[in-house]
């Protein structure tokens, strides 16, 4: 049905709302992992078992009484084409794991794409809420509200000592993973990021690239998330993360200031050159596109570039991913064709920006 809408709309509706600190923080995301009592975890469960879990979930959907989940759409992974799944992954609406290897996998997606509930991923249920900017509390509150609704109708696997029981011991306890996506060109340029990562790790937080585990920090975008899920309350976990993130924001701001002060003209040159590349290239690889988009976004934040909206980084980073490009092209593309199409898309998008 309206899967088309989720696919064709690059910018999730929530992205248009600019959250706090949105010059540096792109998104705040909360994920809660939950499992059903008396069912094997999806990693070990059979098809029939997974089907039962999905059926239970489906029966529960009409009983949910929460406004943000009104008219939410249930997407069955088996019914989606691989390309469509890839697009949903690129939009961060489902995990690669759900797209690739989850029998009876499904996702309940809210109309505004803020809430996504994955079924039969690594855990039976994973509730995800994404907000723009730094809004961890808001995201946690919403995820908790969703969780409370589900819990009224589903029996969770919970132990007093271990908390919410999860398939992987790294998630047990609160089942909470809070992550913040940040654009940190200043810290990368001043070579501070490399030193910062180990100290962030020491505080119990993980730093990753834009598409999660093992992915590269394309376009100077980093994801910072909590590692510890057990023995800390949900509120403390997000408060600690918020504190770390706020400090990184401070450092990024001062890095930007010092670059502008000491190498302003070089930075301005870099920014405008990158805009030139984006406006004029006919072939562009995703890595170069990400780098240039990061430069342009920095130029917008600093004020070198006017009349281009800030959203361009978020939007074009997603739009120029392989899945999206092929979705737009209406079919599979070879890598070279993708690079050509990527360049065209970026040029057209920027042209649109100037006319408005």
């Amino acid at each position: 049905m309206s899967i088309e809408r989720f696919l064709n709309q690059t910018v999730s509706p929530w992205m248009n709302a600019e959250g706090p600190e949105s010059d540096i923080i792109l998104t705040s995301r909360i994920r809660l992992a939950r499992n059903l009592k008396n069912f094997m975890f999806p990693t070990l469960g059979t098809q029939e078992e997974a089907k039962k879990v999905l059926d239970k979930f489906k029966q529960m959907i009409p009983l949910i009484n929460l406004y943000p989940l009104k008219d939410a759409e249930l997407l069955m992974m088996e019914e989606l084409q691989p390309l469509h799944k890839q697009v949903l992954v690129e939009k961060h609406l489902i995990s690669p794991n759900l797209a690739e290897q989850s029998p009876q996998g499904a996702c309940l997606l809210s109309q505004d794409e803020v809430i996504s509930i994955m079924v039969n991923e690594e855990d039976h249920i994973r509730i995800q809420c994404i907000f723009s900017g730094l809004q961890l509390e808001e995201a946690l509150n919403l995820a908790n509200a969703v969780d409370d609704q589900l819990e009224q109708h589903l029996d969770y696997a919970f132990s007093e000592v271990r908390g919410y029981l999860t398939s992987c011991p790294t998630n047990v306890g609160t089942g909470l993973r809070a992550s913040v996506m940040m654009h940190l060109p200043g810290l990368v340029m001043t070579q501070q990021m490399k030193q910062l990562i180990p100290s962030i790790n020491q505080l119990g937080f993980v730093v990753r690239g834009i598409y999660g585990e093992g992915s590269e920090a394309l376009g100077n975008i980093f994801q910072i998330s909590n590692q510890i899920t057990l023995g800390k309350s949900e509120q403390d976990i997000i408060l600690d993360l918020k504190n770390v993130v706020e400090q990184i924001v401070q450092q990024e701001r001062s890095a930007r200031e010092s670059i502008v002060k000491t190498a302003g003209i070089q930075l301005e040159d870099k920014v405008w050159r990158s805009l030139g590349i984006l406006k004029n290239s006919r072939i562009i690889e995703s890595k170069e596109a990400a780098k240039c988009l990061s430069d342009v976004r920095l130029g917008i934040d600093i004020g070198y570039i006017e009349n281009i909206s800030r959203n361009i980084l978020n939007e074009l980073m997603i739009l120029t991913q392989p899945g999206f490009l092929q979705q737009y092209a209406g079919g599979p593309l070879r890598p070279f064709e993708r690079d050509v199409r990527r360049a065209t898309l970026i040029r057209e998008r920027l042209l649109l920006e100037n006319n408005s």
Partner: protein
Amino acid sequence: MICQECQKRSATVHFTKIINGEKMEVHLCEQCAHEKGNIIMFNNSSGLSINNLLAGLFNFNPNIEHTHSNAIHPNEIIQCDTCGMTLQQFLKIGRFGCASCYDAFQDQVTPILKRLHGGNWKHIGKIPERSGGTIHLRKKIDILKETLQSLVAKEEFEKAAEVRDEIRAYEKQLQEGGE
């Protein structure tokens, strides 16, 4: 730069592999990178995933932190009655089979959890409203008991007496409500 695999196309995928502490720069063209298992998008299939690393971490564990007689004997099979998963299987894949595994492998799980969660092994945080049962009440009592102790230590006996009565009231509720 030319792709290391096919030696023909130009390399567009660049990353650093670290295996056993040894760094290796890898430069591939997009086609070869995809053939090698979609490294960029779906890293899970590339073999060196977080799961494997985790499993490695677990394997170390029993040797380091066997408190009493918890060390696994080579011939002993510890198994979860509910799902049939053995401890060895769990250590290998780093995932539990079902909720009961947490109890079945309890002795081994506690040190693992401590390592993963900064020394913590006990849940503090949300309790499900419905299936939480009497936990809510008991947690409340626990917190009040701590308050009581600190009040006594500070010799604030009047307040302590209030808290004591509160605890009694909750305990009565617990007896009536639970079982």
